[in-house]
């Protein structure tokens, strides 16, 4: 019973789990987009759900010997065990409707999708591969921001990734940035906002500062829909809000247009 049914985070309806899974993890009743793991994301985007994983052997270290309630090294081990990931991003190569692309997909399940050295390095390598092979790049961002436990190493990943994107930009290779719930902090303030087009999933929280921080600073309640994808679209920060069900067809259209490849 427990495994078969779940409750939608948004409309609170009790739903049959398989119905959600069959609908790309979207609530059939209210269109709420459940969070996807990086693996699920790659499977959803690539043709037949098939892809080659890249840069798989890059693993995090604990350069600061950081310790809060538990050691960072311990936290890493727990997250690795739970998510079957080395860190918060997967790089992969494959095709979308036959078009060869490089995709980086972030995973919120691994320490809130935070960007430390590994995420910064893998994003940079994905960019450099796209540059070398002249392949379009897609990054699916899902992150609370820079990883505190790696201190200033994390902060500098913003510059590292943005510098790499600048080279891709100059080479005229398309980069589509997909921002899903939530994308905040250092990831928004670097590569995620630097796409040739930036698109969001419905109702995704996207911003620089987190809503709680803003609320505590200004001591006011935030307006409804603030920092949601639709709000960003309205304020000129996104090119579109795209349902997960339409994501692949949207990407195919965008890729064909950018590559100047009519059917």
């Amino acid at each position, binding site marked *: 019973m427990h495994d078969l049914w779940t409750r939608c985070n948004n409309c609170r309806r009790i739903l049959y789990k398989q119905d959600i899974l069959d609908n790309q993890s979207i609530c059939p009743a209210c269109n709420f987009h459940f969070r996807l793991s990086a693996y699920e994301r790659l499977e959803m985007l690539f043709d037949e759900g098939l892809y080659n994983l890249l840069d798989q*052997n*890059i*693993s*995090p*270290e604990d*350069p*600061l010997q*950081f310790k*809060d*309630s538990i050691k960072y090294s311990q936290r890493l081990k727990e997250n690795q065990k739970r998510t079957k990931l080395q860190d918060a991003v997967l790089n992969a190569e494959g095709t979308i409707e036959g078009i060869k692309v490089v995709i980086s997909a972030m995973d919120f399940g691994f320490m809130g999708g935070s960007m*430390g*050295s*590994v995420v*910064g*390095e893998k994003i*940079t390598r994905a960019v450099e591969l796209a540059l070398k092979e002249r392949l379009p790049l897609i990054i699916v961002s899902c992150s609370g921001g*820079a*990883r*505190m*436990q*790696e*201190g*200033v*190493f*994390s*902060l*500098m*990943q*913003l*510059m*590292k990734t*943005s*510098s*790499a*994107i*600048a*080279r891709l*930009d*100059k080479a005229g290779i398309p980069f589509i940035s997909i921002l899903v719930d939530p994308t905040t*902090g*250092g990831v928004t*303030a670097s*590569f*995620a*906002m*630097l796409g040739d087009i930036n698109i969001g999933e419905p109702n995704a929280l996207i*911003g*620089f*500062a987190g809503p709680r*921080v*803003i609320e505590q*600073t*200004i001591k006011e309640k*935030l*307006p409804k829909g*603030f*920092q949601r994808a639709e709000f960003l679209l309205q*304020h*000129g*920060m996104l090119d579109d809000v795209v349902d997960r069900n339409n994501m692949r067809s949207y990407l195919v259209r965008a890729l064909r247009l950018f590559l100047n490849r009519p059917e």
Partner: protein
Amino acid sequence: MSEEKDFYKLEKEIILFEEKIKEIQSSEENNKKEKIARLKKEIEKEWARIKPELTPSHIVQIARHPKRPYTLDYLDYLTEDFMEIHGDRRAGDDPAIVAGLGFYKGRTVAFIGHQKGRTTRERIERNFGQPNPEGYRKALRVMKLAEKFGFPIVTLIDTPGAYPGIRAEEQGQAEAIANNLKEISKLRIPVVNVVIGEGGSGGALAIGVGDAILMLEYSFYSVISPEGCAAILWKDQKAVTQAAENLKIGAKDLLDMGIIDKIISEPPGGAHVDYEQIFKNVDRHLNPTLKKLELRSPEERLEERYQKFRKIGVFSE
């Protein structure tokens, strides 16, 4: 650990000496020089006692000291004919970032820096040095201007962070920062960053990266404020001390980690105790750094700048 002494208590004696120096300086007494020299010796002695005890959270307090010299103080000393340039030509002018052109050692240099206020009114006006998107866009505008005319850029970093506000989000705080990073990586002229106080996260980074990063001895550069880190990871505001220690945000840590290029030493008691001395120290390091970069070709600088950040990160493979 949160019981440790506040820096303001530690420096009490030094401040008394410093006030006396100022008193003598503005007086008509005889033997001014001698008296001041003697007081400075006293400050040195007191500082030699305090210095070994300084913790990371003390350094944070020095970096945020209300008397610490700010960007405009430095520009006043370093430049001639500084001309401030206002506005991003899009949405407004952000008083939390000052930018403009000035002569420095016989050439035009573009200066950009965070600016905090000294009085309560000024602080509010300057938004406590927390920029909005138009501040970053103004900074970028001036960087492009510098590039167009071939002027080097010097930035001065001193911010708690980018402002977390409703309008800031609406106007694209994240986009403004991201775009600056991308554009800085492409600038064909030398870019030197000097961290003079607080290097608060992305809000500092957006004008705080380039070919060389110099840091004042008691400044810091961090991914998050120790307070923010304590609140999130320790869920306890009192854990600021532990957070500051764990984050390794001091100049020496950052030099050891290969993030910054040079530490600029501060006078005994910290920069706020002797403005003239810290200005001289900054001056002494800034010009050679610029000169060295000016000898490189734009292509060399671009490649070296890329590699500088490309290499940052610790992981195994």
